[in-house]
């Protein structure tokens, strides 16, 4: 099966007055048709930049694709003209964003905002597009779509707005939905509903999803594969179960440990000490080495090569190197 999205060795940099920021440094991952993949990592790790590069939404200048390929349905989006990209955005690939409060135009009715893409990509007349928009509102579980259609975003609650955003993104039935932190700005109870909704819509419409999040807690409910990013590189990638239960990379371990747990026992929140490296001049070795409690001498000097530890489960960590086996047992034990 040909992947719907295949990112190959993508490198993106931003030119600033202080110098070049290497935001994405050789990222590769694939998404198969109908599959949901999570891209996880803390703020500034390049997960959003990667996704926005796929959409061609990186402001340029200062943003710049240094190298790599983005194959969507076999075609390299990086070679597309702006006009061609307009035909892809909203039509082939839909995108929703973190803050539904600010992501909708406050002076336009929700119905028109949903209908806009339909009018553009399917050349529907206004009334038919609005009719479709109503169907979309119904599909994303907004009650009284007739009335809601003519309301403005401020008349919607946060969760409702994110539903409206999803309706907008899916109006043209794209093959791929990129959800950039779709639940981060929402209440926990609403987060669950939105993830549920996305899972149902994925089954119903059969599109692929790239879910970008820093919260491993929301991943399991939706995605079958996880890509863990740090400082513009992929640390670990694999099927959800592998990542959760056969964690290889100390960074992934740290992320999993920092997911708040519910239960009787009240433990203090776990966090990973330190801060991500400065991407003006990334360290020569593994970017996580300075924060890693298992760092060895080699970690600070050489970038670890990616290894496949089991089918589909890739890790870039010196601990998985055959020569580090004794150390790894120490870590696991």
């Amino acid at each position: 099966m040909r992947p719907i999205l295949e990112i190959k060795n993508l490198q993106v940099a931003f030119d600033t007055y202080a110098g070049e920021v290497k935001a994405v440094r050789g990222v590769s991952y694939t998404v198969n048709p109908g599959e949901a993949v999570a891209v996880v990592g803390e703020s500034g790790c390049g997960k959003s930049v990667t996704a926005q590069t796929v959409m061609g939404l990186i402001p340029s200048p200062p943003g710049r694709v240094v190298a790599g390929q983005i194959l969507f349905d076999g075609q390299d989006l990086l070679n597309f003209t702006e006009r061609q990209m307009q035909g892809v955005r909203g039509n082939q690939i839909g995108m929703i964003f973190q803050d539904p409060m600010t992501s909708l135009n406050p002076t336009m009715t929700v119905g028109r905002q949903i209908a806009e893409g339909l009018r553009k990509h399917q050349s529907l007349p206004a009334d038919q597009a609005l009719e479709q928009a109503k169907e979309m509102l119904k599909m994303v579980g907004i009650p009284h779509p007739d009335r809601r259609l003519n309301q403005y975003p401020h008349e919607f609650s946060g969760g409702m707005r994110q539903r409206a955003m999803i309706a907008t993104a899916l109006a043209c039935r794209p093959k791929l939905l990129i959800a950039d932190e779709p639940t981060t700005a929402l209440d926990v109870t609403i987060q669950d509903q939105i993830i549920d909704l996305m899972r149902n819509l994925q089954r119903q419409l059969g599109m692929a999803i790239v879910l970008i999040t820093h919260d491993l807690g929301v991943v399991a409910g939706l995605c079958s594969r996880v890509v863990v990013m740090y400082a513009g590189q992929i640390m670990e990638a694999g099927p959800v179960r592998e990542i959760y239960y056969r964690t290889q990379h100390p960074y992934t371990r740290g992320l999993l440990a920092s997911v708040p747990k519910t239960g009787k026992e009240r433990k203090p929140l776990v966090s990973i000490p330190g801060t991500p490296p400065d991407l003006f001049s990334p360290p020569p070795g593994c970017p996580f080495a300075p924060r890693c409690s298992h760092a060895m001498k080699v970690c600070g000097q050489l970038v670890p090569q990616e290894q496949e530890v089991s089918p589909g489960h890739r890790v870039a960590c010196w601990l998985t190197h055959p020569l580090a086996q004794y150390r790894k047992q120490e870590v696991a034990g």
Partner: protein
Amino acid sequence: MKALSGYLLRRLISAVMAVFFVVTITFFLMHAIPGGPFASEKEIPPEVQKNIEARYHLNDPLWKQYVDYLHNLIRWDLGPSFKYEATTVNEIINRSFPVSATLGAVAVSFALIVGMLSGIIAALNHNKWQDYLAMIMATIGFAVPSFIMAGVLMYIFAYKLRWFPAALWGSPSQAVLPALALAGMPTAVIARFMRSNLLEVMQQDYIRTARAKGLSRQVIVYRHALRNACLPIITYLGPLVAGIFTGSFVVESIFAIPGLGQYFVSSISNRDYTVILGVTVFYSIFLVAMNLLVDLAYVWVDPRIKLNEGRKA
């Protein structure tokens, strides 16, 4: 509809209050200035002085003059001018306001069209030559006072090029130079406003959403950005229109235009009490009305603003 009429009623009451305060303060301030309309260097016989004062009720106690004035004001009778014989203040306003309003309308239209267009062009070409050019022009327009602008325009277009007449009022071509002189500053302000608003709006999340829908840049600017960027300009427009419509003293006197502006200043030095009050009252009513219009325009442009929200405060 009910919300609208209730709102208008509340606004009307507060407008009447505002005008009342303006009248009261102006009235007593005006009488606090030493001298009077008939004080002159030439000695007037005391009997004559007395007769004149009696005719204009200036010998009445101040509170009675005040009450009489309010009483006449309710019937929109602004009284006779002290300076211009056999002329009432109503006549002065009726005669000169249309002139100021015509000139003002031309100036405001120019400021709006040119200001908004250059602001939009500057924002869409951020940090390119169009942007720099527009902002240099705006800085000049902002910094050069209207009387210098008037002189320069006169020198170039009336004296050197002889394209437009230098002064007086009557034909459309006579409106061009004074309107330009009057529009200079507001054009600059609107251009700067428009540019910074549009730049800010283009950074908003909903613009990114619009791009993610695959809309073209033109559609995004036209459909999503402009309306949101125009909101702050509407606020500025209310006082601007009121100020320009009621006349700019300087520009009107340079171009010898018989507008309302000249009465603003001359009436004070003349101590022409009724004209001072009349023009001030007229201006404040106009200002209040413009502000009301602005607020109504807001409701029309920005769906987030509701009329009855004033009740909460």
